[in-house]
């Protein structure tokens, strides 16, 4: 029997991109999934140069030390997903675009976070990290946050951005992000954030280990969605669309500074 597109999870193991290009690629996939031109998609990617993303509702002036980022050549981009500012350097970053159908469409926002954190938790556990869900949007291990995610729902598609921290450079994190004292009142980021390196040592930087964790994430997302994995890249149309969105939205100060954009 021919498998329908709805039974497929496209897995894209992508190379490194600039910040605006990464955010544009995710948006192009969202549009393509919404038009039923692409199946549900998990894209795992890297950032070059390292980048800071801020949440949809955050303030470019108050939440990021933009001058420090500029000095060090760090990209700064506003995401279309809510949540907090992230310094992306040593991490596994993923985006998941799934049509809002079936189980995912009927659960509450909070429940969909729990549901879509579960594949990452399972993958981490298979790699020896005792991970647990921590509402709303965190995964914790060894008493600290090891993974965070943020969702948006647009055009009948759920897009989840997520990261798994391989290593954290607190000196850089505090140089680039402006963490208000109110945020750190409950222990401070240093106490609240952990990484695979902290919990499992040097293998966090081992390419073989990282690939293994990425593949387990893909397998677990496919299991959750009851889908078969199809390995493909972005379509030609998605690549063209991404370039347009990069130019008009994520590479544009009107969006990054003022949260204003005309989306396609």
């Amino acid at each position, binding site marked *: 029997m021919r498998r329908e597109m709805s039974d497929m999870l496209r897995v894209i193991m992508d190379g490194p991109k600039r910040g605006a290009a990464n955010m544009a690629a995710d948006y192009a996939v969202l549009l393509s999934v919404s038009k039923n031109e692409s199946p549900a998609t998990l894209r795992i990617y890297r950032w070059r140069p390292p980048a800071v993303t801020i949440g949809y*509702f955050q303030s470019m002036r108050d939440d990021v030390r933009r001058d420090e980022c500029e000095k060090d050549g760090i990209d700064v981009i506003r995401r279309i997903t809510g949540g907090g500012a992230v310094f992306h350097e040593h991490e596994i970053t993923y985006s998941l675009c799934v049509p809002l159908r079936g189980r995912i469409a009927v659960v509450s926002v909070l429940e969909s976070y729990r549901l879509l954190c579960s594949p990452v938790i399972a993958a981490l556990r298979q790699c020896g990290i005792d991970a647990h869900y921590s509402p709303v949007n965190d995964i914790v291990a060894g008493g600290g946050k090891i993974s965070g995610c943020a969702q948006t729902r647009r055009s009948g598609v759920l897009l989840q951005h997520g990261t798994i921290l391989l290593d954290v450079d607190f000196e850089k994190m505090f140089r680039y992000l402006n963490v208000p004292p109110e945020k750190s009142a409950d222990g401070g980021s240093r106490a609240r954030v952990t990484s695979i390196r902290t919990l499992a040592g040097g293998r966090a930087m081992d390419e073989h280990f990282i690939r293994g964790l990425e593949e387990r994430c893909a397998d677990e997302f496919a299991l959750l969605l009851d889908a078969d994995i199809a390995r493909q890249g972005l379509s030609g149309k998605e690549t063209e669309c991404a370039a347009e969105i990069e130019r008009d939205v994520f590479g544009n100060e009107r969006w990054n500074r003022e949260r204003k954009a005309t989306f396609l």
Partner: protein
Amino acid sequence: MTELTAVIKAPGEKLLRVAVRHGGGVLSSVRMSGDFFMYPEESIDILERALVGVAVEEQALIGVLEYEISHNGIELAGVSAASIARAICAAK
């Protein structure tokens, strides 16, 4: 009119920052930012606009916010009408 600001983090919620202007106890502009979630995201513009002309008084602000949230089917996570109202009243 100078802009007044407040930053709060209610227990179990995310960080919320407000910047407001008001004259004679009535809001003339409101801007909110933080690491919270709101669905659909563009609803933040509806809430910010709806608060213009409202008295800087917690119950009045909560009333307007709750009406807009329910009327427009807005979902909030990590922020609430109560904390937005409290932050606006605390702005200085």
